[in-house]
């Protein structure tokens, strides 16, 4: 919501990301903070405001939809284009053209918002003016009219297609989630390679760390599956696990006879 952004001198934002309708909406709210006509807006300043906004949301560990990040990247690029001299003979639109396009987009969106509000403020049927409360059917020969409109027709077709889809053989789509079985397999294969205590991290599939940082579901499932698999191997007496303190790193070692003094 608009009111939820305050550009206090402390630099503290209060951000309600759910209140926004996408990155352009955020930009429009930020642009209003410059308190000038949209046509006069400083795009460099706006880019900075937006990047600060995204950083703030990132700092408070809120997840931002990809479109917000794409806009951030584009704005960072645009800012650099505007601040640096234009390369000669560039094929791309100039920094100014890109800035003008953004200004146009903001104006256009704001215009649509305004007219939307003006529409709703009009006298409206059922609110300000009214239909005949007692419509009459004029009598005469009896003709049956089938009552159906385009919406109902399309809805019927949609419903039919859906039901058809429902009776199709069940297809189980491949999932990118990790299974414990896969993790077990990976641990078993890996165990030979590291005779001593080794961090459990090393047994995670490639890319898991990056994925975790981005909060990706697949990475989180890989992490969980690996941990569960390690417990399973302990139960089978195949490995030993060690953890120095709560939330500390977990180490793992094969429990083979040659590495185990007992």
């Amino acid at each position, binding site marked *: 919501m608009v009111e939820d952004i305050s550009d206090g001198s402390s630099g503290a934002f209060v951000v309600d990301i759910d209140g926004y309708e996408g990155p352009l909406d955020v930009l429009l709210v930020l642009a209003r903070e410059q308190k000038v006509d949209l046509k006069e807006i400083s795009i460099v300043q706006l880019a900075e405001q937006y990047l600060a906004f995204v950083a703030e949301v990132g700092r408070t560990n809120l997840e931002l939809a990809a479109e917000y990040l794409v806009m951030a990247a584009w704005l960072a690029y645009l800012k650099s284009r505007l601040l640096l001299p234009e390369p000669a003979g560039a094929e791309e639109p100039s920094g100014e053209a890109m800035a003008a396009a953004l200004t146009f987009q903001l104006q256009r969106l704001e215009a649509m918002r305004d007219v939307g509000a003006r529409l709703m403020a009009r006298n409206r049927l059922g609110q300000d003016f*009214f*239909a*005949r*409360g*007692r419509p*009459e*059917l*004029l*009598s*005469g*020969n*009896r*003709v*049956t*009219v*089938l*009552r*159906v*409109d*385009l919406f*109902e*027709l*399309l*809805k*019927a*077709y*949609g*419903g*039919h*297609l*859906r039901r*058809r*889809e429902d*009776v*199709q053989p069940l*297809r189980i*789509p*491949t*999932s*990118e*989630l990790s299974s414990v079985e896969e993790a077990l397999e990976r641990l078993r294969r890996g165990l030979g390679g590291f005779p001593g205590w080794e961090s459990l991290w090393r047994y995670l599939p490639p890319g898991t760390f990056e994925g975790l940082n981005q909060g990706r*579901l*697949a990475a989180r*499932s890989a992490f969980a599956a690996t941990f569960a698999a390690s417990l399973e191997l302990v139960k089978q007496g195949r490995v030993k696990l060690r953890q120095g303190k709560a939330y500390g790193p977990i180490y793992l070692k094969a429990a083979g006879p040659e590495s185990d003094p007992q």
Partner: protein
Amino acid sequence: MTDIDRRHLRMLEAVLFASADPLSERELAQRLPEDAAIPVLLAALKADYADRGVNLVRAGKTWVFRTSPDLAALLSRDKLTERKLSRAALETLAITAYHQPVTRAEIEEIRGVQLSKGTLDVLFDQGWIRPKGRRQTPGRPVTWGTTDTFLDHFGLESLAELPGVDELKMAGLLDARPAIQIYGVTDVPEAEEDEDADEDDADAPSELGQP
């Protein structure tokens, strides 16, 4: 008519027009300003409408606008009884529109259920579908398609204006499967095959969404 408050007259007119039920003088008095002289206003309004196509009439203690009785006969060559289309008929119509030219057997095949006798008749009587030709297959079954009356009724300029399957989906008219996507599905079930090979197909829009 000089001492009639025009403002009150307009109010009375609007209230009577918008009301779903005939209104008594007491109810009218409750809705209009206190100083409105209801009986005088009613008499004036009744006189205003005396020669019009709509009259203000008194029914017992209540007042109501009604079509002038002498017009009822003139106007209405048809008494419209509106009827809802059955779901079977609605689906049959939609399938005919999207898959035309299409035979009865094909409609049954697509719907996965037999067509009861009257279904095509209802649509035919309404002028929405008509025979289009014959399929060049054993038995040479009749194919069906939609008519201009159909387009007209649904406010379509041409069949090409019917949204395709993808667009129905996007408009929310056709829900996709439950959201398994959340769980990181990589394999999107693809569209089913469709092999309509009709010779008499000339006027069927080829790019209509084929389910």
